[in-house]
């Protein structure tokens, strides 16, 4: 320690660092290393690969020229944007109405509808697609409602996408609608403003940042989603499935890299816009605002109730159909119920996929929460090394802009590179866990950072003046105070790790295939019922863990957070 301290003395001129400063430095170095391996180097390899040919010769933009000269591939861009655009438009309208009902009306059973809206988060996106196949597919129950159109293609992609992105939009818009100042509404009423005008001049502008943010998030989710178009896209190609086909089908990594880069561009732009919008929205509401309390309105409340019931029924219809399909012997000819589909006695699928999923999700939740919280602490709290800490923060924000499939491909190229000493990690649970933590890093980092920002800036100064080591203050004060955020992060990571497909589909090895990927493969080989069963396993696990999480954290928080009660 002394030698390190003297070395740093020299580097810093005369400035001496204490043990805590050094600890922070080591952590910064650690995180720099982490992001280099988990993000920067793989992405760099992926991007650079798009400028080389199969033999490793640099060919500049030739791959891109080929891409834009291939009408089939070029068409995918248009297709991707079309379904993403339409889905976004539909979801935003539906979600706004739903969030409005939850936050701005006196509708009954709000608690129930809040929970129901979040149900789609407990299942992979492909489950919605599978359920739609049973409702509207060639042998579906309601196929006639499509008037001869096929569910396989844009219609199916849009419908499934609307279902799975709905909770994301409700969450974001709901947060915006929850923040409101009743004084604005009182002022408007005193001025005898009509309801329509109040809505157009106060409610809508107040939620505009939330709406913009939801538009961006949903658009990117749909644009980069892989599970839905894979299952229900039919011959309607989108960019995400193109990457998969180029890489897995044709072993054309270079073209896969080209599509990835092209997919990366709109994602990065959208993400940048989202960051700017979010930053602007911070100061929108003063701390003195009086929260808006909705007044009963028979017509609006009941209309909203009907609307929310409709959404709830549709949500449950999707989940219910997936469950039903998993239990039916041979759709649609033999509707006897059976558990046969849960034995997965087909090519390479099995219960071990589910156990792998649990292993991955638990590891991501445990390790990820730990890493991400410490990372956020390093960014937010120390005084020294502001430049290095800012760099870490930028790294933490970057994963949001990288589509899962692109990240997965980047990892594949990284880990398969002949000169990579980490090559032995190929196909291991470790690499799947690492990619998943990275994939979901940004949202959780922001949650942790927000919690840390809410703590007094001077805690660390006080601790230093009292000669208490950073590690002790971290354990004794920072962690306990941030416990609710830490629990939120862990469950977010668990649920998302269970349901994600995109990054891991390139990374599993023999014996490490996870359930969501297995479901894709089962569906691919025509075992739709088994695919539904596999997807439902994920749902059960998510429900059980979610419920356990509520109970355990409720108890723990009640005990640990006694100081919050006055």
């Amino acid at each position, binding site marked *: 320690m002394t030698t390190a301290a003297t070395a740093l003395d020299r580097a810093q001129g005369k400035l001496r660092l*204490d043990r805590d400063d050094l600890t922070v430095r080591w952590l910064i170095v650690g995180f720099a290393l982490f992001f280099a391996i988990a993000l920067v180097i793989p992405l760099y390899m992926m991007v650079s690969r798009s400028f080389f040919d199969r033999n490793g010769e640099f060919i500049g933009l030739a791959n891109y020229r080929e891409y834009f000269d291939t009408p089939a591939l070029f068409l995918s861009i248009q297709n991707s944007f079309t379904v993403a655009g339409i889905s976004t438009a539909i979801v935003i309208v539906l979600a706004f109405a739903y969030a409005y009902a939850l936050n701005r009306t006196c509708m009954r059973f709000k608690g129930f509808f809040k929970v129901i809206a979040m149900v789609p988060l407990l299942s992979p996106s492909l489950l919605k697609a599978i359920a739609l196949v049973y409702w509207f597919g060639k042998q579906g129950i309601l196929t006639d409602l499509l008037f001869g159109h096929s569910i396989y293609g844009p219609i199916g992609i849009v419908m499934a996408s609307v279902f799975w992105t709905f909770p994301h939009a409700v969450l974001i818009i709901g947060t915006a609608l929850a923040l409101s100042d009743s004084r604005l509404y009182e002022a408007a009423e005193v001025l005898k403003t009509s309801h329509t005008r109040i809505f157009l001049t106060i409610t809508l502008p107040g939620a505009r940042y939330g709406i913009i943010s939801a538009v961006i998030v949903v658009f990117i989710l749909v644009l980069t989603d892989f599970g839905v178009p894979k299952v229900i896209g039919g011959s309607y190609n989108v960019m995400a499935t193109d990457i998969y086909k180029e890489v897995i089908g044709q072993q054309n990594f270079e073209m896969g890299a080209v599509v990835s880069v092209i997919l990366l561009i709109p994602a990065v732009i959208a993400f940048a816009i989202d960051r700017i919008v979010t930053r602007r929205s911070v100061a929108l509401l003063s701390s003195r605002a009086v929260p808006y309390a909705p007044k009963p309105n028979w017509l609006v409340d009941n209309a909203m109730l009907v609307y929310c019931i409709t959404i709830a029924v549709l949500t449950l219809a999707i989940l219910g159909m997936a469950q039903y399909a998993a239990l039916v012997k041979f759709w649609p000819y033999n509707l006897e119920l059976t558990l046969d589909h849960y034995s997965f006695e087909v090519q390479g699928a099995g219960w071990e996929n589910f156990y792998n999923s649990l292993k991955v999700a638990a590891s991501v939740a445990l390790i990820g929460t730990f890493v991400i919280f410490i990372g956020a602490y390093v960014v937010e709290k120390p005084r020294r090394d502001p430049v290095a800490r800012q760099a870490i923060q930028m790294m933490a924000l970057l994963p949001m802009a990288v589509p899962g499939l692109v990240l997965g491909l980047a990892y594949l190229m990284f880990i398969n590179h002949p000169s990579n000493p980490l090559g032995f990690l190929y196909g291991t649970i470790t690499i799947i866990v690492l990619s998943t933590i990275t994939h979901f890093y940004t949202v959780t980092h922001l949650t942790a950072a927000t919690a840390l920002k809410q703590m007094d800036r001077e805690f660390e100064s006080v601790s230093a003046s009292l000669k208490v080591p950073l590690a002790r203050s971290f354990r004794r004060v920072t962690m306990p105070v941030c416990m609710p955020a830490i629990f939120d992060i862990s469950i977010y990571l668990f649920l998302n790790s269970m349901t994600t497909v995109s990054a891991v589909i390139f990374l599993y090895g023999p014996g490490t295939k996870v359930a969501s990927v297995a479901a894709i493969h089962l569906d691919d080989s025509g075992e739709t019922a088994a695919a539904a069963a596999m997807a439902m396993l994920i749902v059960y696990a998510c429900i059980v863990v979610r419920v356990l999480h509520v109970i355990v954290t409720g108890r723990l928080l009640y005990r640990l957070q006694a100081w919050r009660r006055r």
Partner: protein
Amino acid sequence: MTAEANPANDGFLQLEGVSKDFGGFRALTDVSFKVAEGEFICFLGPSGCGKTTLLRCIAGLETQTRGSIRMGGEDISWLPPSRRDFGIVFQSYALFPNLTVSDNIAYGLVNKGLARPEIVARVTELLDLIGLSEHVSKYPSQLSGGEQQRVALARALATSPGLLLLDEPLSALDAKVRARLRREIRAIQDRLGVTTIMVTHDQEEAQTMADRIFVMNGGRIEQLGTPDEIYDAPATPFVADFIGVMNFFPVTVVDGEAVTPGNLALTCDVGGLNPGARVNCAVRPEDILLVDDGRDGGENTIEATVSDIEFLGSFVRLYLEAPALGDGELRADVRKDLARRHEIATGRPVRVRIPPATIRLYGTGPAA
């Protein structure tokens, strides 16, 4: 008390040429001073004057760009906060919300390797000191602002630091609590004899609590002195204007007198000012006297008209228009009974006198 000793000889805390730049912005410029052991010092100044930055440099929470800081004979300029000997209290209290009052106070003690009974004894002692013995096991959120700030004080004092730093400790409290805590903090400081530096923007706070006040402006110390010196003999127009209320009007030095724009010659001490110098004349409102009707006011008597009256409790403040002094208004504070006797009313012509000894001349204006 040690504060009365000559601080120049025994500088417990000594700063020399301390400057601090934030990027292109210079927050502190060449700050030097000595503080004697046991002194209570206030850094006083408007927001943005650098007083908090100076405090944070002494604590090591900021690092000075140039200059040196010595404490107890040791050069601490480059030491991290954890290796300096101080306790600190912030405006926001910064109490650990998840720890009880006693755990907060014991926070720094646990680390010193003290035995449990010793810690308990020390915490009890400190709780007595701040008068919160009955609140031992409460959480900060269950206490009032004033109580929280007292706990923060106890926590800072627990490890018996050589230096106590208070960063606007009373600014978040309401007026009554603030006034009481002022006296309590000062009493505790007297009892423990701990060298204390407090940052404040409230001149009344500084004047009631400090042994010496360092008035700061634009990253420099404008004047350091006892509260009396600062008030009675402000060294610069800034200090004169910032501490209390001050009238300013332009004058020209002619033949050892100050001549006003309206050609009235005021007797006063012109010091070493050159004849013909255009300077600013400063007078405190309470030094301006009303002259009885029909009596000769003598030197420095000025004709004026009352343009406005403000009632300020025990006295009234008159806003006077005096053509002899130029365009500005002259503020004069007059006891209520005197104002009544003179039948003061808006529009009434009055004569006022400025005693020569109360006039101060500055080469520059108050805005400088």
